[in-house]
């Protein structure tokens, strides 16, 4: 199986705090991989490094065989740096793309706290996300010379919304939808950018067990239908254990375990991280 995303020794340090320390992981094509860990373990920070929101202090991230993000401690960070592998990438090139460039490469994401476009209805939310793949320039777009492309975008939006069972609510304000549907809309919006890799940041947050069940089958379904690879952060263990092929466990910024759900479940370090260790008195 092909490596789609690969993180090598990624470290993210804010001032003196090392939020992610020497994280190396990979996601293969057509996999569902989960990134779990207690609160504050650095999962979302890792996500933000992959999507270009943060510039990692050290390390390298490759997508589809090509290096897309690379950095090494320099300037003030060279002195402050407290992570591992300080010397590894020194003198190497620095690549720090903005989030929109990452999205163009085919990596889409959702957010932990839903971030829909508040003033727009359901249809426009998805249609707006199609903009990234539009080829029309400003001129042809304003003068409607690209009406064909516009129509294609509208048709694609319609198709996507129908597939996601959101077509009936297309005219409703995005933020007036029930919580579960807002999540679903956010995923649909991410799909509209036509990604190969979908990053889900706590997709089941705030959902009841039944909704979580539905979400699990939903994620599997979109993975099959759009040929996606999924990397997700999640706290609901039943969801994680149910659908992921592999799991990475973070604690205090460092990777403490990886493997299949069964392997991770029986890993003593993971149990310690979640439940705490009894101190020897």
């Amino acid at each position: 199986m092909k490596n789609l995303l690969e993180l090598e020794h990624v470290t993210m340090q804010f001032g003196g705090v090392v939020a992610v320390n020497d994280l190396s992981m990979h996601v293969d094509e057509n996999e569902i991989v989960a990134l779990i860990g207690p609160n504050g373990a650095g999962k979302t920070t890792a996500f933000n490094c992959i999507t270009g929101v943060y510039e990692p202090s050290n390390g390298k991230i490759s997508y589809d065989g090509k290096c897309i993000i690379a950095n090494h401690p320099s300037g003030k960070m060279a002195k402050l740096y407290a992570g591992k592998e300080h010397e590894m990438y020194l003198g190497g090139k620095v690549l720090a793309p903005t989030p929109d460039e990452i999205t163009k490469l085919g990596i889409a994401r959702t957010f932990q706290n839903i971030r829909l476009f508040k003033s727009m209805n359901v249809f426009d939310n998805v249609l707006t996300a199609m903009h990234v793949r539009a080829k029309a320039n400003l001129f042809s777009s304003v003068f409607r010379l690209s009406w064909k492309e516009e129509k294609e975008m509208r048709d694609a939006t319609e198709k996507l919304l129908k597939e996601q069972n959101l077509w009936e609510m297309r005219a409703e304000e995005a933020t007036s939808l029930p919580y579960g549907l807002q999540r679903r809309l956010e995923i649909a919006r991410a799909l509209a950018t036509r990604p190969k890799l979908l990053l889900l940041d706590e997709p089941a947050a705030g959902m009841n067990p039944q909704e979580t069940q539905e979400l699990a089958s939903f994620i599997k379904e979109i993975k099959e239908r759009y040929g996606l690879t999924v990397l997700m952060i999640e706290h609901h263990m039943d969801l994680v254990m149910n659908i992921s092929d592999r799991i990475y466990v973070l604690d205090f910024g460092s990777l403490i375990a990886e493997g299949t759900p069964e392997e991770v479940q029986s890993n003593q370090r993971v149990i310690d991280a979640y439940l705490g260790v009894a101190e020897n008195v």
Partner: protein
Amino acid sequence: MEKEKRNNLIMTFIAIALVYLVVFILELTLRPTSIVFTVLRKGAIYSLVAVSMNLLNGFTGLFSLGQAGFMLLGAYTYAILTIPTEVKQSDRVYRYYDAVINFDTGVFVALIAAGLVAAFFAFLIGLPVLRLKSDYLAIATLGFAEIIRAIFQWDVLGPLTNGANLLREFKDLSRITLPFSDIPFPPTLFVFIVAGVCILLVVLLINSSYGRAFKAIRDDEVAAEAMGINLFKHKEMSFVISSFFAGISGALLAMFQYTVQAQQFRTMLTYEILLIVVIGGIGSISGSCIASFLYIALSEWWLRGLDMGTFLGINAPELFRSGFRRLVFSVIIMIIVLFFSKGIMGDKEISFERMKHLFRKKRKAKGADA
């Protein structure tokens, strides 16, 4: 659904055409010095600049206060380009300087150039300034407008800008002719056509794929970026386009006023426009247009009596004297901002669909009463 939409669109076009027809008829029948024309012309010019500001503030979520500066650039570009060559060579306008621009262009070319010059400056300023957020952006653009005003009065630039002196004798509203002839063009209609075309372009932009990207940035920058929208590129785009139209409206203002002086483009002008945008509704094109006509009608016409001694038939020269109008006006504005903070239209547009809806509701309410 589609058919209804198309019908509404056709109705809108008919309504707009009617407005233009009325303007044309008024121009044929009324005295050319009538106050109605002042209100209509200035209202149309302010509509355009308010719409351009709304594109930035209301649709892209960038709080910029540079509008007066870009209008000044437009007004000067237009005036300098259309002062006839023989006037430039005589000392009627450039009394203390030798004009550097030794040619003149037609109205159309000068209008476009006015927009382009403003857009070019916006592009340059946007490079550093658009990396700032909210208040800081407002401060930076406000500062730019003031600096531009000061620079244009600098006498080193005199050969270009005529220093702090007036520019006049350019092709103002009374000197516009039909193309390739000497027949005068109806001036109010001219202002309406130019402003109308520009506003139409803005409407087309807002409803295009790029317009949706602008709105996405306004709603949530982080999400917009994650959806592949390059923040800087789109902000710059919006800023440049907004300034382009501000430049054109500056040129129109120059035509309307017959003279141009940098002094006129004070910060107060930007605040007036901001006020119109807020009163009309942030994020509503039709709101901006309605509000600018209302604002101009109030300040230039309906409240005039408050300064002149007689208002609504009450004759009280002791109370209604010069300056009282401004006081009343401020109170009205305060009431609007305090109690109707969403403005006339909110972020909705006026449309036949909505009007039908409104009428239906009213009828229903009446039916319930009976």
